[in-house]
């Protein structure tokens, strides 16, 4: 059979989870990471991160809106997916996705953004006319009280929500890791480290994404990039990366040393079918290079343009590397037979329901949504916007 090497069970010929399922942990990871970056400013008072706070929240929201769409597209019966809410099977890790997702979307992100923007929404509502007035009236829920007492309450509630939000973001993505980590039939997935590895790689990808979006937006708007802010973001990116890489290394060493029944099959797979995506893209280009570049900045003084270049390169490499990591988990976990006697191949098609084109659309969609969100909820201070700096 073409693409098959050795023996695989007859039913394993069809690969079950496609690139769309690679996107699912990738997108939710970006959400969780962006939110945690926002929380650093809000809860832990890292003032240097102020310019990225709102941007991080909006980025998280944009990606969260798109995150369930590839899943939906992948289902054999998307019209039945609401059954997960009505009659969930409580023992199923996947069944809880809907609830974690809704909790995170509605209670955490939307509420936090609303409280943070309420004053501006009300002011725009008052100052505008026509459709704009209607839109902002609706967005502020026709509640125009922006007295100091009300704003103080907003701030207090916003802070409480952020505090709840941090464990929620951990839950959202740790849970995605659990979906894979709890499958005992698959030794490539089945490890209690999976949720933790997913979480830290999520933080890495989300922080890198916000850093890139911030620099890109500043360039587009022709305003100077706040280097103190970007330096701080890059520092947190390095820290998160070091933790993430240590965890992945621990997983690797554990597998190598324990060398259980699945080891030979997995080892062979990594050295052959996953070599490019795992060793070259994920580990060398997507992890080593950005860690070295980011660490270099900590030890050596570079001019602003050089630092910006370093941050851009490491940011892009990080996003590619984390995507490769999701790919290696999801696709890699299906390339070997559960008999450990053979391997199959994943054929990525282009213009099919689960092809590369759909994946590209789902990757671009959050950026389009983010552009719209930035229009409605400008993340920068009003005077800066008005002066058009």
């Amino acid at each position, binding site marked *: *059979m073409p693409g098959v090497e050795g*023996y*695989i*069970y*007859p*039913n*394993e*010929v*069809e690969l*079950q*989870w496609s690139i769309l399922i690679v996107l699912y942990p990738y997108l939710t990871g970006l959400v969780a990471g962006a939110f945690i970056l926002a929380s650093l400013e809000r809860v832990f008072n890292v003032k240097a991160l102020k310019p990225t706070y709102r941007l991080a929240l909006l980025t998280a929201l944009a990606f969260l809106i798109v995150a369930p769409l590839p*899943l939906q597209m*992948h*289902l*054999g*019966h*998307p019209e*039945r*997916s609401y*059954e*997960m809410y009505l*009659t*969930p*099977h409580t*023992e*199923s*890790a*996947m*069944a809880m*996705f809907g609830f974690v997702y809704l909790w995170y979307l509605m209670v955490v992100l939307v509420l936090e953004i609303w409280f943070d923007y309420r004053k501006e929404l009300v002011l725009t509502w008052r100052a505008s006319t026509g459709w704009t007035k209607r839109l902002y009236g609706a967005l502020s829920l026709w509640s125009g009280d922006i007295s100091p007492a009300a704003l103080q309450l907003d701030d207090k509630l916003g802070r409480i929500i952020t505090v709840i939000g941090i464990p929620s973001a951990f839950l959202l993505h740790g849970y995605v890791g659990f*979906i894979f980590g709890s*499958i*005992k*039939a*698959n030794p490539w997935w089945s490890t209690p480290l999976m949720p933790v590895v997913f979480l830290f790689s999520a933080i890495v990808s989300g922080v890198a994404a916000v850093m890139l979006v911030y620099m890109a937006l500043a360039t587009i708007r022709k305003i100077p990039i706040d280097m103190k802010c970007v330096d701080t973001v890059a520092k947190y990116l390095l820290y998160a990366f070091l933790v993430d890489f240590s965890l992945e290394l621990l997983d690797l060493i554990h597998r190598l040393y324990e060398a259980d029944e699945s080891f030979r099959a997995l080892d062979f797979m990594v050295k052959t079918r996953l070599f490019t995506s795992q060793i070259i893209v994920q580990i060398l280009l997507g992890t080593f290079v950005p860690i070295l570049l980011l660490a270099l900045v900590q030890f050596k003084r570079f001019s602003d343009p050089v630092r910006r270049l370093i941050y851009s390169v490491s940011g892009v490499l990080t996003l590619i590397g984390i995507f490769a990591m999701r790919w290696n988990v999801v696709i890699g976990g*299906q390339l070997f*037979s*559960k*008999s*450990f*006697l053979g391997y199959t191949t994943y054929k990525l098609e282009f213009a099919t329901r689960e092809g590369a084109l759909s994946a590209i659309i789902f990757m671009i969609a959050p950026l389009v949504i983010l552009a719209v969100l930035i229009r409605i909820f400008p993340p920068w201070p009003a005077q800066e916007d008005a002066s058009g700096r």
Partner: protein
Amino acid sequence: MDQTRRAFLEKAGIYIFLTGAASVAWEYVEARTPQLAPNYKDTDHWWGMIIDVEKCIGCGSCVRACKAENNVPTDEDGRFRTWVERYRVDPLNADHPDVASPNGGYDGFTALDQAGDGVKVFFVPKLCNHCADAPCVQVCPVGATFESPDGVVLVDKDRCLGCRYCVQACPYGSRYIDSRTHTADKCTLCYHRITKGLTTACCEVCPTGTRQLVDLKNPNDPVHEFMRTHKIHVLKPQMATGAKVYYNGLDGAVR
């Protein structure tokens, strides 16, 4: 009652064709509620299967019977409710058995040229293990996959989302997606037959009696004697799934 001649003949035909207890159950089977048939009480049974590896000759009759009985696609790869594997094991290199299951064994296996080369060759029929602690049941987000009170793991095609999580969770490769319904599919242990007192299609046609449907709750089932007097093994016992397909004479090289 408005009884047309055609309806009368159909009914009479069924009664003549399926005699006794089976005919009483028929209308419940047709209504897709065989467990409600008055002469079949699901809590009285606990179904499983015995497979005597040493009896299997690799003829593939079971695979063909299963596909015909259960309308399993024959024109697509990767759709098998049951299949047969041929193992060639070098006793000195048992970790690397040479395994093959061309078209799931549907066409039967032909004789091997290399006979007598010091390698042992045997067949292993496989199917859903109808696990008591089935990982596929655990992961289904909507409970479309469930275990019936008589111990059969089934899929409700009207509820299944087609998320494929159950296919990933099965350690034995027993599940696939039916491309006609876009839902998960697998061996039902011929539930439509066993609830009428018949055996499964694969057991029915097996010329050597390799496969035996067993009712573990029936004290008179010969399975109890068989299990007591033979060395019985299940596939991948380390998975702790409570598999109920018991193999006699299973080689350690089998995965």
